[in-house]
C-alpha cells in the first residue's frame, strides 16, 4: 500500500535514525570519559541501557502498545546513556538502576511515552537521584592521572556492585570532590580564585580531565549540527549566555567569579548544550523560542552554580525551562507568510 494521499514521496529518515546518530555523537565523549576516568563508565552505561530497555518493554506491554517500533526507536537508549554519563562513574549499581527506572517509567512512559514527556526524562532521573541520594551522587572519582590509587576494571566492578574496595584503600583514596564542588566550598571559606584554581584538579580550560571529555562532547555536537539533527539555536544561546554572565562577573570581580572558559568546560555544560537541552520533545519548537530556552538554561545554570545549593545546576536549569516551554512556544510564533507581524 502506498501512502493514502499525497505526498507520496518522503525523505529517507526516521526517529530511530535520529536517535542512532545521537548515540553515535556520544561515542567520542564516552571514549574520552574512559580515557580520563577509567572504564567504570562502561559498566554504568550497560546497566542503564539494560534497565531502560527492560523497563520500557514492560511499560509498553502494560500500556498495550506495540513493542517493536518503540523499542527499536532508540529513544530509551539515548535517555539511558545521557543519565549514565551524568552520574558518577563509580556510582553503586542501584543508583544507576533507580535513576533509569524513574526516568523511563515515570518521566517518560507514565506521561504517554515517546513524544509526550514534558520534562527531559534523563534530567528527571538525575534530579530525583540528586535529591534522594546526595552523598552517592557527589562521590566522583578523581581523573586517573590525579588518583592516588588506580582501580582495575575488576576492582571497579566489585566496588559498583558490592561497595567492596581492595584492602587498604578508603573511599577517599579513589574519589574526590568535583572541581565545581571544590570551587563552591573554597569560595565560601573566602579563598581567592587564583589560589583555588592552583589546585591540580583544575585544568587549563576547565577541570583537569573534564575539559577533555567536554571537548569530545563538543565534537559530537558539531557532528549533530552537521547532520542537522539539532539546530544551532539552543547550544549557542545556552553556551553564549553562560559565557556572557561568567565573563561579565569575572571582569567585575575575578577573585570571586570563575571565568567563562571554566564554566563552559566544567560540569555538564557541554553535554547539556548539545545533547540534553536539545531534546526536541521537551524543548520549544520555534527558532526564537529555542534561543530563549537556551539562554534561560544558561542563566539558571550560572545562577545555581554561583549562588545555589548545588555545585552544578544544569539538570535543574533544564527542568525549570521545560516548564516554560508551552508558554515560550505560544509567545514566539513566527510571522506566517502573508501576515503582518
Amino acid at each position, binding site marked *: 500500500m502506498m501512502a493514502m*494521499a499525497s505526498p*507520496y*514521496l518522503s525523505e529517507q529518515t*526516521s526517529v530511530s535514525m535520529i536517535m542512532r546518530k545521537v548515540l553515535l555523537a556520544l561515542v567520542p565523549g564516552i571514549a574520552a570519559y574512559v580515557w580520563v576516568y577509567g572504564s567504570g563508565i562502561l559498566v554504568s552505561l550497560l546497566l542503564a541501557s539494560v534497565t531502560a530497555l527492560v523497563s520500557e518493554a514492560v511499560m509498553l506491554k502494560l500500556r498495550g502498545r506495540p513493542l517493536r517500533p518503540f523499542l527499536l526507536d532508540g529513544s530509551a537508549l539515548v535517555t539511558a546513556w545521557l543519565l549514565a554519563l551524568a552520574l558518577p562513574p563509580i556510582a553503586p549499581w542501584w543508583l544507576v538502576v533507580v535513576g533509569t527506572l524513574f526516568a523511563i517509567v515515570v518521566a517518560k512512559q507514565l506521561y504517554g511515552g515517546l513524544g509526550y514527556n514534558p520534562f527531559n526524562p534523563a534530567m528527571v532521573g538525575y534530579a530525583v537521584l540528586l535529591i534522594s541520594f546526595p552523598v552517592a551522587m557527589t562521590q566522583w572519582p578523581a581523573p586517573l592521572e590525579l588518583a592516588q590509587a588506580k582501580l582495575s576494571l575488576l576492582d571497579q566492578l566489585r566496588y559498583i556492585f558490592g561497595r567492596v574496595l581492595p584492602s587498604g584503600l578508603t573511599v577517599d583514596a579513589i574519589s574526590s570532590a568535583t572541581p565545581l564542588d571544590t570551587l563552591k566550598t573554597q569560595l565560601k571559606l573566602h579563598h581567592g580564585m587564583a589560589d583555588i584554581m592552583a589546585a591540580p584538579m583544575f585544568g587549563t580550560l576547565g577541570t583537569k580531565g573534564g575539559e577533555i571529555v567536554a571537548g569530545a562532547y563538543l565534537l559530537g555536537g558539531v557532528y549533530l549540527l552537521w547532520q542537522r539533527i539539532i539546530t544551532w539555536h539552543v547550544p549557542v544561546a545556552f553556551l553564549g549566555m553562560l559565557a556572557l554572565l561568567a565573563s561579565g562577573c569575572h571582569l567585575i570581580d575575578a577573585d570571586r567569579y570563575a571565568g567563562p572558559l571554566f564554566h563552559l568546560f566544567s560540569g555538564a555544560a557541554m553535554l547539556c548544550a548539545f545533547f540534553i537541552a536539545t531534546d526536541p520533545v521537551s524543548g520549544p*519548537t520555534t527558532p526564537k523560542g529555542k534561543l530563549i530556552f537556551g539562554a534561560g538554561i544558561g542563566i539558571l545554570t550560572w545562577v545555581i552554580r554561583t549562588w545555589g545549593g548545588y555545585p552544578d545546576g544544569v539538570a535543574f536549569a533544564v527542568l525549570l525551562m521545560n516548564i516554560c516551554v508551552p508558554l515560550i512556544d505560544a509567545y514566539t510564533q513566527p510571522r*506566517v507568510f*502573508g*501576515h503582518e507581524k
Partner: protein
Amino acid sequence: MIEKLFKFHGGVHPPEHKAESAATPIRPVPMPARLVLPLRQHIGNVAKVKVAVGDHVLKGQQLAAPEGMISAAVHAPTSGTVVAIDEQLIPHVSGLPDLCITLQADGEDRWIEREPLDYEDMEKTAVIEALRQAGVVGLGGATFPTHVKLRADPRHPVKTLILNGAECEPFITCDDRLMRERADEIIRGLQIMAYLLDAECCLVGIEDNKPEAAQAMRTACARSAVPVEVVLVPTLYPGGGAKQLIKVLTGWEVPSGKLPSEIGVQCFNVATAYAVHRFIDHGEPVISRIVTVTGKVARPGNFEVPLGMAIETLVQAAGGAAPDIDGFIMGGPMMGFKLPSPRVPVVKATNCIIAASPDLFPPQPLPMPCIRCARCADVCPANLQPQELYWFAKSQNFEKARDYHLFDCIECGCCSYVCPSHIPLVQYYRYAKSEIIALDRAKQAANLARERNQLRLARIEREKQERQARHAQKAMGAKTDTAADEAKKAIIAAAIERAKAQKAAVTPQNTDHLPPEAQAEIARIEARRSQAMEQQKE
C-alpha cells in the same frame, strides 16, 4: 531588470525524476472513439449543458456554457455525437462520480468555423467575455477561470505580470517541453495578456533545472517586440507555487486571504498563456492540453491529449504501464492524488499522469508519535508551525487550528516529506480544513434557518392579531356559520380518497404499456420469484 532574487522560507529538494519524460518532443495521440467531458473541470460554478443526447457536434463547439462569472465553458474536442449526459467517475480525489457529457467521435474531426479575434480593435470586456466562452482556465493544475484574472480592475491595477514556468513538482515536464517547443506562442499569449491587463512589467520565472526551456524562451522574447524578462529561479520545491514565485521574483508577499492582483501582480501558467494565444489567434477553444505521462510506463514523455480521453488509453500511447503498478497518480507526487480508476478522463487539470509502483513510491511505515523535532516548521514555505497544527487537527480543536493559520497552508507536502515519524501531516490539515468549511456551512445554514423561523413566528403573530381584530369586528355582527368548515373537511376527505386511488393506480407505472412479449416475460419472472420465495420459506 531584476537585480536580486528573494527567498521564501523552507522548501525541500525531492528527487526530480524529470529526465525520463523531458528528453522526447511532445507527441500527438490518436483521437479516441469515446470522450468523457466532466462539466466541473474548473473552480467555480458547474457549466450548464447546451446540448442534448443525440446531438451531432463539431470540433470546438461549445457543449456547456459558463454559469456566472467564475465558471468556464466545455467544448467538444472532436466532431461526433453526444451519446450520454450522466454521472461518471471523474478524476477527483473523492473518487465520486459527477455529471459528464459523453461524446462518440465520428472520425472526421471537423472543426467549427474558426476566426482569429481582432482583440486590439475590440472592447476589452468583449475580449474577456470571449475568453470566458472559450473555456480558458489555469492549466498549471489550479484551473481557476483565466478571464476572471484578466479583467482589469481600476482599484487594483496590475503592474507586474508573471508567467509561471517554474514547474517545481518532481516528474512533471509538460511546461518544460511546451516552453522548449512553443516558446513563441507562449510569448504571444503573454503579449495578449499584458495588453488586456495594461501590465508594465512582464516576467517569466523558470527554475534553473530547465536551462533549455529558459534559452528557448529568451530567444522567443528577443524575436518578439514585447519587453519580457526571463528569470532563472533556484530549484526549490514548492518554488512554483504562485505566492512563492511572486515572493522570489518581487519580494512581495501576497497578504493572507487576498489575491495577488491586490498587490498589483497577476500570475499565469505558461500553458495558460499558450491557450490564450490559441484562442485569440486561431479561434480554438481549450479542447486539448499537454500531459506528461511518466513513472512505470514503457515510453515516458509528453503528449498533446484531447480532453476527455481515458487515462488508460493515454497510458497505452506511452507504451503501456509495467505490470507491477498499483495505480495512477494525477499531478505530481507531492500534491497529486491517486486516480479512482484508470478509466477516468483527462481534464483541464491533468498536467501529469504517473504510473505508480511500490518501488517508485515505497509504502510508508506506520506513523510514530511526533517528537517535536520541528523539521516540518523548518521546511514550511508558509512559515507555519506544522507540529502545532497537527495537534490541533488531531484533537479536532478546529478553532485553535484556525488561530494558528491553518488556512495559510498550501498543502505542498513539505512537512510530510521530511517528517521522521512518517506522520501524514497534510492529511490532517486537509481533514481539518474540510471539517471547518463544513462547520462554517452548517453555521450559515443554521443562521438562515433561525432567521426564517423568526420571520415565520412574527408572521404568525401578526396574523393572529389580525384575526383577533376581525373576530372582534365579527362578534358585533352575525355569528359565523360552521357549514363552510364542514364543507372544507369534506373536500379534503374526497381529495384523500382520490390520492389513495391514484397511489394504488400509479404503483406499477413502469410495466404498463409494454408489448405482450415483455408482459409475458414479466409474468414468468414473477412466477419464478414467488416460487423462489416459497422455497426460501421452506
